[in-house]
């Protein structure tokens, strides 16, 4: 006799037990409660102890110090800063410097890493060997060593400003850093930027429209002229009508140094180079592993359905590879951000160096400063992870026909 299908029995309690106690059952729940109690007690002891010690040393606790005058200079500030500004401003300056070096480092590391990773998979023998050598050399040397190498062995050996190596008179390399032509915005800058923004919007809309046309009517729209027109043509027309949005002011050598132009300090260059080159080696391996993880048969299945090589890569190989690549790639981004605190070794004024370094030693507010600094790094990490998860989710949603 056939047994008809019926709904499963209620599973609330078994599920709860699994969530709380894993495989160990209610005994595990008890164990966890004991653990939580222990951690809470430990935390309380630490806080109480620190309080007692600080009172004994007469260090005022609290965040009042943030409004006091810092009184020290910072070699790179993205916002106006002087010695008479407060510690809060020092904090912001350091944070911006950390974000700057992290963002540029992440971007560079990604580009180099993908290039090297794909290079290692290339059928070209020489390219594959060179990429392999890069990975092996770079990932086996300590990051601090590489940072000092760039700072002391490469940048410090550049000539002094008067003998700068110059590229076409726009970029000057010397031992005090790089001096590049400074962009100066004109009246038409914002209109042109607005036009570019609208162009980007139009390009995305065209893409969405083309997808919709393909899915709804099976019509293939040729959108590249629209995309090109809106991204390049539109801003160009506005610029022609209103005048150039930017001009570049070339640096000029006066006496021993340059006037005009944008100065990039050597500490920044060394740190960015070291971080991105080092992290790129790991990203390269991640990319290589991700692509190798996609079975060869997937490519064959795609082509045997008549999909072009590009479509197979885009619709089948890349989404599967990204699933493998994204989580460890996020780790590398976080590592790079946290490793940027090695800035202290070359004196780049990042958050760690100016806040958890100089500010801490001047004020002695160790607990508050460590808490703030930890919180900021944690926040940056969480935001990065969230952004990467969102991207992974988008890729997951955008798969194939959806």
């Amino acid at each position, binding site marked *: 006799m056939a047994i008809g299908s019926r709904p499963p029995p209620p599973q609330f309690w078994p599920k709860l037990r699994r969530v709380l106690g894993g495989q160990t059952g209610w005994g595990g729940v008890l164990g966890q409660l004991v653990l939580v109690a222990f951690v809470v007690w430990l935390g309380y002891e630490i806080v109480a102890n620190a309080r007692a010690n600080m009172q004994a040393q007469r260090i005022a606790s609290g965040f009042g110090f943030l409004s006091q005058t810092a009184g020290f200079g910072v070699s790179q500030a993205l916002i106006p800063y002087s010695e008479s500004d407060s510690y809060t401003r020092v904090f912001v300056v350091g944070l911006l410097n950390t974000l700057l070096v992290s963002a540029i480092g992440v971007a560079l590391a990604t580009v180099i890493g993908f290039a090297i990773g794909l290079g290692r998979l290339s059928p070209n023998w020489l390219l594959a060997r060179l990429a392999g050598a890069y990975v092996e050399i770079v990932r086996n040397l300590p990051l601090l060593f590489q940072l000092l190498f760039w700072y002391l062995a490469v940048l410090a050996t550049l000539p002094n400003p008067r003998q700068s190596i110059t590229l076409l008179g726009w970029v000057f390399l010397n031992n005090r850093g790089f001096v590049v032509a400074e962009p100066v915005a004109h009246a038409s800058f914002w209109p042109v930027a607005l036009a570019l923004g609208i162009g980007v919007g139009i390009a995305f809309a065209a893409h969405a429209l083309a997808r919709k046309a393909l899915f709804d009517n*099976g*019509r293939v729209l040729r959108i590249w002229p629209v995309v090109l027109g809106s991204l390049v043509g539109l801003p160009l027309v506005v610029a022609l009508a209103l005048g150039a949005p930017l001009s570049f002011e070339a640096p000029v050598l006066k006496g021993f140094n340059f006037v005009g132009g944008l100065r990039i300090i050597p500490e920044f260059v060394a740190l960015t180079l070291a971080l991105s080159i080092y992290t790129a080696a790991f990203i390269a391996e991640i990319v290589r592993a991700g692509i190798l993880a996609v079975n060869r048969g997937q490519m064959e299945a795609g082509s*045997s359905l008549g999909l072009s090589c590009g479509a197979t890569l885009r619709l089948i190989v890349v989404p599967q590879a990204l699933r493998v690549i994204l989580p460890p790639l996020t780790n590398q981004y976080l590592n790079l951000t946290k490793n940027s605190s090695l800035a202290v070794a070359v004196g780049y004024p990042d958050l760690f160096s100016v806040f958890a370094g100089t500010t801490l030693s001047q004020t002695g507010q160790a607990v508050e400063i460590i808490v703030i600094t930890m919180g900021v790094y944690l926040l940056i990490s969480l935001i990065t992870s969230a952004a990467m998860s969102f991207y992974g989710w988008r890729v997951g949603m955008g798969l*194939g*026909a959806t």
Partner: protein
Amino acid sequence: MTTEAVVTVAGLNKWFGEFHVLRDINLEVGRGERIVICGPSGSGKSTFIRCINALEEFQEGRISVDNIELGPNLRRVDEVRREVGMVFQNFNLFPHLSVLDNCTLAPIWVRNIPRKAAEAAAMKYLERVRIPDQADKFPGQLSGGQQQRVAIARALTMNPKVMLFDEPTSALDPEMVKEVLDTMVDLAKEGMTMLVVTHEMGFAREIASRVVFMDAGQIIEANTPREFFANPQHARTRLFLSQILRS
């Protein structure tokens, strides 16, 4: 059988480096014909049918599918592949797509069929392989036999003129072999032109119009199943049959 040839292979030679893997293969497959290819491991069966949809390139000879010429330099590859469906030993479903999306991907992106229509057509083929209720699942949630039937449906959605099967049942447990073979029998009865590499001799007996025996890169013998099994011409064929039928 009609004489109109859907697949013509003439003087096909292929080398892997120095290794001469296919030697002077000639075969004509008429519309609606079912060819079963068998032979010992390493004899070049997979390589041969992979040449037909240009998954492998070859050095000499000529292959034409539905009057599309595929020379050694493999131009018009995409045209040929659109007309040829392929079913692999290990399914090769797209794990990141649902069963339905597996079946609509190529119709939408290659044939530019509107999504609604592509989905309706895909459901029709999934019904034909008797798993319409699995349409929203992902390949990893299906049994091997179900996955292979999805793979067959996926190939069919492109309306191929020819279907190639490379040992479609050899990665399956015995009870799943039958459900996949049944699907293939249905397909054969509907008049699909098929080239099937398989060691399922029962299937060959029942369905094949011709059985082709390959050894060491050559076609040793090609005959109707009745003649092939009752009256093999070559000692090599007899040896192979005695081994495979005994097990």
